[in-house]
């Protein structure tokens, strides 16, 4: 099948070499900050994200509640931090689960060819038969609110991107005269991977990882938003957006916060690998 998942194609369309520059530095710094916040979580400000104080609902930012309180009187800042932990850890885990086997199998398929290649490609095509989010949605629907369904669905979708990208690039590299020459000169497969494949595929994998993490976080938030993924009362940015949407007239600053956090994180991920820089 000729369709590629949007993330991978956009990533490869975007650039082949990651170039240094201001956007990338900003992205990396932002990302570092976000990861730091996520690692510490609500303990950063020492407030309990779950504690409800209904009398203090929907308050504007104050000394006690830095970013105000939500409709149930819970501290916004604490909930945002808690949400960041969930999103980032899920994204990180999915990228890892998808990336390692995806890359390895992609190289294997390109190297071996034959029925190995056909089998793996057919599996990847089958997963691509449905749009990614729809697949994750369906899987998550089996038991709504459960974490594992999200994780499995997102990992499957990301796996396909790694596999297709790696296989496509590896096929091109392995067909080059340089690899033929190396084989004739007696290079071991390990050395060929090290000298030929790794430098060519490596940078692109980083890009896919960043875009993939962004996709994972967006998917989690989207599904949280429609209550199929994570569910209230868990603090998750998408869930928070759904909870605060009814109050968009009276207190727009509330719903804007999780939106801002999500957009900022995705932007940081995109920028850190060069956004859409081209030649």
């Amino acid at each position, binding site marked *: 099948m000729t369709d590629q998942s*949007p993330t991978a194609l956009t990533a490869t369309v975007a650039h082949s070499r990651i170039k240094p520059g201001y956007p990338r530095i900003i992205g990396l710094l932002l990302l570092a900050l976000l990861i730091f916040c996520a690692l510490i979580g609500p303990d950063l400000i020492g407030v309990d994200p779950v504690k409800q104080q209904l009398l203090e609902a929907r308050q504007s930012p104050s000394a006690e509640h830095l970013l105000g309180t939500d409709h149930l009187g819970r501290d916004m800042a604490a909930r945002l931090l808690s949400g960041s932990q969930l999103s980032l850890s899920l994204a990180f885990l999915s990228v890892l689960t998808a990336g390692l086997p995806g890359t390895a199998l992609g190289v294997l398929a390109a190297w071996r060819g034959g029925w190995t290649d056909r089998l793996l490609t057919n599996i990847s095509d089958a997963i691509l038969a*449905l*749009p990614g989010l*729809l697949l994750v949605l*369906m899987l998550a629907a089996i038991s709504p609110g459960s974490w594992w369904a999200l994780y499995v669905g997102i990992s499957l979708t990301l796996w396909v991107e790694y596999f297709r990208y790696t296989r496509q690039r590896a096929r091109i590299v392995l067909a080059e005269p340089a690899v033929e020459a190396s084989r004739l000169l007696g290079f071991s497969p390990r050395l060929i991977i090290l000298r030929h494949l790794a430098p060519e595929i490596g940078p692109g994998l980083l890009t896919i990882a960043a875009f993939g993490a962004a996709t994972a976080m967006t998917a989690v938030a989207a599904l949280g938003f429609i209550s199929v993924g994570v569910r209230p009362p868990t603090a998750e940015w*998408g869930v928070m957006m759904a909870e605060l949407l009814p109050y*968009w007239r009276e207190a727009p600053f509330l719903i804007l916060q999780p939106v801002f956090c999500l*957009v900022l994180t995705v932007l940081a991920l995109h920028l850190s690998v060069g956004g*859409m820089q081209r030649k």
Partner: protein
Amino acid sequence: MTSAHPLFSAFLQRGLQALIVAVIVGVVSFTMMQALPGDAAYRIAAGRYGYDMMDAAAAETVRNELGLNQHWSIQLISWLSALAQFDLGRSLVYGTPVVDEIATQLGYSLLLAGGAVLISIIIAVPVGVVAGLKPGGAIDRLTLGVSILLRAIPSFALGVVLVLVFAVQMRLLPVAGFRGLEHLILPSLTLGLGLAAVSNRVVRDSVVEALGSEWRLFSRTKGLSARRTATRHILRNASLPVVTYVGVQMAYLIEGVVIVEAVFAWPGIGHALVHAIFNRDIAMVQGTALTLGLIYVLLNLFIDVACRLIDPRMRSQ
């Protein structure tokens, strides 16, 4: 795949994909059914006859009829064969046949999708062409920055932001539901902007490549005017990568339909799917997911055909 009729092979490929979609949706729906707590026979009977009309006897009939005491693998097979015969059952919530419900909702979703694609083309093509005519220039860099920013905003977040901007602050456009065409604007704008954010760069890249190509230079130096070169050569060559990329965006479109319909309470198939999941209305879940999946396959097929129309190299082997 090479064959004497590449169009035929496209149909074959997409047909296979449709089959896979049906199987995946069917199996997952079945799993959902099995995973629900409580008595399956009761639920199915309720799904068939409606909660009001059924009783324990009906549930028992269903149990025997469907062989719900049998092994799950046998049940799966009968589930899938029902699907293969286009028997989508009845909605648990409404009691009406799933097919009827979907027929109503399909129009709304197609309207939304169509509007989104239209808006994305109206935005992306002029912006991309203008940016591509002067690569590295001010407009090019500006559109790059805006595109990066826009692309980082997920569709539902963008929807929320547009709601806040247009409905709250400016009190311009209606926000939810559907009473008139003006209700279509915000949802399709949300999706369309998301699509255009990337496709305008694809247009731009394609224009830059065409303008820098050797065949374009030769077309000019052999004497063709700039206008004739554009219409007879550049148009076709530049549109190929764009059409191909639109094909890639179809996944984003389908995903976006589901999410955006949820944000704006747009009564389409995506909206129905989400509600069905909420209500554990398995028949509706299956029906709507299947419809969305098949629309996706159909859209891919259209793109396949379009590519073959533009690119004569794909027509014969």
